[in-house]
């Protein structure tokens, strides 16, 4: 009960402050709608908001799965070789350094305004943290461990599957956790640039019509959705992460 109170306290505080600002300054609802107005819109337009929320959730989840798989796969391919990592690192860094907003129009042009371009945006934003963390895992093996394994005269494949890969997995999972927190950015940016459904699209659509309350309701659902996906990924990652205390 105490923990629940602790967790909800900041939200209650924030909503109270929001309500007070609207009440004291008598802010017009098209600038800042009151919390009860947002809740009312949420209830009234629930089916509409939910249909858009499902689109965004699918984009985030599929992008996470695809981006994490690609990131992990690429890291496994190049992680075993220092030279290959050095060669490919600049391209990997560029994939992250370019703002998603800059790439979005190009992806729309190539992949259209449907699901594929949003999936590509989310995949792109997820890819780098997973690749970088997994690569860090391959590099984190101490020198004394490397020397020990060298004296055991291993076959390269056995060394990779039995030692290097399992030791890199906790790092990959922490990358997935980070990626889960940024994945919604890819999906929503993609929807803003061009789409016909999703919470990003709904917010843009509502903004154009002065329906600030609907915008806030969509934003609220997006926050809840991002939080739920992030906690699910965290739980899943923690369940798989059995090798955290590896260096013993």
């Amino acid at each position: 009960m105490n923990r629940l109170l602790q967790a909800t306290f900041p939200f209650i505080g924030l909503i109270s402050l929001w309500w007070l600002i609207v009440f004291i300054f008598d802010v017009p609802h098209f600038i800042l709608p009151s919390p009860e107005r947002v809740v009312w819109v949420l209830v009234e337009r629930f089916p509409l908001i939910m249909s858009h929320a499902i689109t965004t959730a699918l984009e985030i989840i599929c992008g996470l799965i695809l981006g994490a798989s690609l990131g992990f796969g690429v890291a496994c391919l190049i992680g075993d070789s220092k030279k290959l990592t050095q060669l490919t690192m600049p391209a990997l860094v560029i994939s992250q350094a370019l703002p998603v907003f800059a790439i979005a129009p190009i992806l729309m042009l190539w992949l259209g305004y449907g699901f594929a371009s949003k999936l590509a945006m989310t995949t792109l934003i997820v890819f780098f943290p997973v690749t970088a963390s997994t690569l860090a895992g391959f590099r984190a093996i101490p020198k004394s461990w490397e020397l020990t394994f060298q004296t055991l005269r291993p076959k390269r494949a056995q060394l990779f599957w039995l030692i290097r890969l399992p030791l890199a997995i906790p790092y990959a999972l922490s990358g997935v956790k980070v990626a889960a927190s940024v994945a919604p950015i890819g999906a929503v940016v993609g929807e803003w640039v061009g789409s016909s459904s999703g919470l990003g699209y709904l917010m843009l659509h509502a903004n154009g019509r002065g329906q600030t309350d609907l915008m806030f309701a969509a934003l609220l659902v997006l926050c809840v959705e991002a939080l739920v996906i992030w906690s699910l990924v965290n739980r899943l990652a923690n369940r798989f992460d059995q090798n955290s205390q590896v260096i013993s």
Partner: protein
Amino acid sequence: MLTISNLDLSYPGYDPLATLSWQISSGDQVALLGRSGTGKSTLLAAIIEGAPEVTKQSERIAYLSQQPALLPWATVIDNVLLGFKLRGTKHSSDLTQRAVDLLDQVDLGALAYRKTSLLSGGQKARVALARVLIEDSDLVLLDEPFSGLDRSTRIQMAGLCQKLLVGKTVILVTHDPRDAQDWLDTAMVLTKDTIKGPYRLNEFGSDRALIQALDGDL
């Protein structure tokens, strides 16, 4: 026989260290003392990695460091047999029995099928020793294997090494001559300029003598 000829222990970007030449006969067991940063671990790494300045009779080397390099998700016996698994050798029942026997010798027979992450530091050190023994290598390199262990466990480990490494060529790198005194007779001292010795380990009975030796003044 292990011969090291003009091996430069310096590390790029740091103060220059000794360029050493050293010869160890088969079956010799020697402690290598030296202050931190004199290149003791670099020397062992050069031997393992087969630096061109190093000539060794056998390619079979066993290495035991302060970090025992045990896979925490594997059982004790799987860690002992890790070398065979990494080489793709199939486990025979004889091999498994040999591993169990060795674990008995290091007092861990009862824990053979326990997950390694559940062991104490001293138990992990003994598992790593059992892995060194099952490899049956001719040259055994020990890089401060007792650091981080409490005094009684260090004494126990030294006793096990004395009993189980009979006939092997051994280099024990250590800061503390007490880790070697009960077990080895000879010591070499590596300073920033040179390698000196051999000394009798009992010459380092007093702290003063040890400090003089580490400073290259003995």
